[in-house]
């Protein structure tokens, strides 16, 4: 460890080894409120407000945790919205086929001269096609409308919110501290038409490990990797990689064996339905060639990797967070640095 660069990397490993317990101190008067944190997350704070907020957060463990939680939630929400958009575009594709068929049938019906060919007798065919196509189009039209509605009727949801408000009022009337764990337990124990799953109240018996886990990485965000087969794709949730082979109806999970910071996977590429490369922080490279089991590929540097392109199980190009690219043509046995053109 004689080189300065090696010693710098040792500092990196030292910090990675250390733990971060959740904050225990109370909020200060200058602590950021949710509105400010939300505006920060949306990039809506003025330069001066941002400077003040950063200066505070740099010295406030509670606000750092809050910022981190919100940032992870935003990442997760963006991923969910992207998945929704992909679903929407697939629904549009579902529309396009019957619509195109219907348009084609109408065009044939309109433009083909009725009296000039046997089509007069066969005229029934295009009409039947048109009817069939328009039925298909209608069916396709009805499907997304039905799917767009939430499972629970809106009236019930409104009633549920009102019920919760009434319950809270009762709690307050009883003099209960609405923020205490007991009040939360009371509320959860009250009978409800659409009761949420039993809450796990955070009390003295809550395992400390869970709290630490929260501070370290409780908010796994999902990363989707599509393959050339539209039915097959992977998604990464923390250290677990899931694969679907039926377009997302069911998912099979497989552990990668990664733990801690190494479980931070950042990108993936699937050049075939059974081949997928994943990269992450600290030089993590994973490869599966059967779609199920994952092999850790040795990478020359413990640097953060941010992107990967792959053409098959042998050839891949990995991009480090600092922009450098590394290429392998032998399934990761050797890597060479790509010199920019």
């Amino acid at each position, binding site marked *: *460890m004689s080189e300065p660069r090696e*010693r710098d990397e040792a*500092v990196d490993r*030292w*910090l990675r080894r*250390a*733990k*971060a*317990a*959740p*904050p*225990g*101190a109370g909020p200060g008067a200058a602590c950021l*409120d*949710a*509105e400010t*944190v*939300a505006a920060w*997350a949306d990039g*809506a*704070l003025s330069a001066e407000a941002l400077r003040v907020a950063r200066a505070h*957060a740099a*010295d406030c*463990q*509670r606000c*750092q*945790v*809050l*910022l*981190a939680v*919100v*940032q992870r*939630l*935003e990442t*997760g*929400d963006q991923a969910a919205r992207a998945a929704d958009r992909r679903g929407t575009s697939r629904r549009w594709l579902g529309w396009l086929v019957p619509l195109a068929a219907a348009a084609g049938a109408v065009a044939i019906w309109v433009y083909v001269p009725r009296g000039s060919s046997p089509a007069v007798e066969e005229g029934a065919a295009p009409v039947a096609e048109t009817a069939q196509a328009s039925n298909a189009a209608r069916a396709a039209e009805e499907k997304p409308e039905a799917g767009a509605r*939430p499972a629970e009727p809106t009236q019930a*949801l*409104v009633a549920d*919110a009102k019920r*919760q*408000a009434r319950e*809270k009022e009762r709690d307050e009337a009883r003099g209960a501290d609405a923020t205490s*764990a007991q009040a*939360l337990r009371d*509320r959860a124990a009250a009978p409800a038409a659409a009761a*949420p799953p039993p*809450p*796990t109240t*955070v*009390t*003295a018996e*809550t395992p400390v490990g869970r709290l630490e886990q*929260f*501070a*370290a990485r409780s*908010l796994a965000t999902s990363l989707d990797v599509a393959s050339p087969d539209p039915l097959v794709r992977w998604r990464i949730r923390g250290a677990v990689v899931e694969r679907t082979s039926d377009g997302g109806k069911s998912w099979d999970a497989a552990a990668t064996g990664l733990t801690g910071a190494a479980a931070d996977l950042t990108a993936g590429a699937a050049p075939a339905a059974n081949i997928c490369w994943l990269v992450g922080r600290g030089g993590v490279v994973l490869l599966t060639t059967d779609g199920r089991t994952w092999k850790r590929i040795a990478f020359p540097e413990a640097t953060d990797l*941010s992107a990967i392109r792959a053409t098959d199980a042998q050839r891949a190009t990995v991009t480090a*967070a600092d*922009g450098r690219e590394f290429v392998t043509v032998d399934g990761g046995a050797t890597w060479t640095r790509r010199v920019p053109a």
Partner: protein
Amino acid sequence: MQISARLVLRLHRQADAARWGVTPDRFARALEASAAKALAGRRPSGRDLERYLAALHLADLALACACADGHDAAWEHFIREHRPSLYRAADAIDPTGGARDLADALYADLFGLPKADAERRSLFRYFHGRSSLGTWLRAVLAQRHVDRLRAARRADPLPDDESPAAVAAPAKPIDPRREARVAIMTKALGAAVAALAAEERLRLGCYYAQGLTLAETGRILGEHEATVSRQLARTRQRIRTEVERLLRVEGLPDAEIAECLAVVVRDAGPLDLGVLFGDADARKESAADRSKEGKGL
């Protein structure tokens, strides 16, 4: 902060606030409250004020006003649009379902209740339209979750000396030399971090203590992830240089410094990054100790 009637009407129209029965007067009050919070202590020009207001999430602000006032259709719309996302956030915060009750309680607070003076007090009054309604809801949920964790942690009893956990805890063999090395390195690290700029500490805290990715850290700092990576590398170098300097001041030879670094790389000991990067008081102690002992440790 006075907003011209013409501007209010334009923003009211832009927000389609009439859809929820929000009057221009009501909307004007919401706009004024928003400007008063964001521009507190400043006297913005008419142009600055207009620019600020035009950049707000006006449709969300109108919806929040209507929900706060108990408009049924607005409530239906709000619940249909935002409940799935809020529950998704609750499940992401705590996959065991522990945050669902927080989300439900949040709905109750958002709905608000007529108090004895018949005034409805909805949580929506704290939404000012600077962010989207969805981001604000997630931030409120996150805030409640973090504060609940903090409260739970404060309430955690210290382990009883005779408790099964305490009795069962295996006695760790103590290596005094190793303990001393870890202690001196932790102290030197605290002093080195105290000397960093606030932005550097925040970057380190987000990345190492909170475990955010480079991209997420970059979004908080307003930097590209490659910039975050470069800045982290620079900061690590500064920390290493400062730690080595401090240890040399203590009279440690280079070989011993290298050994100290090797020890903490193997096991960082009781070092708490949350405190290191997020607790100014703890760092001040380090810095005070350091100055007391003539810039040494």
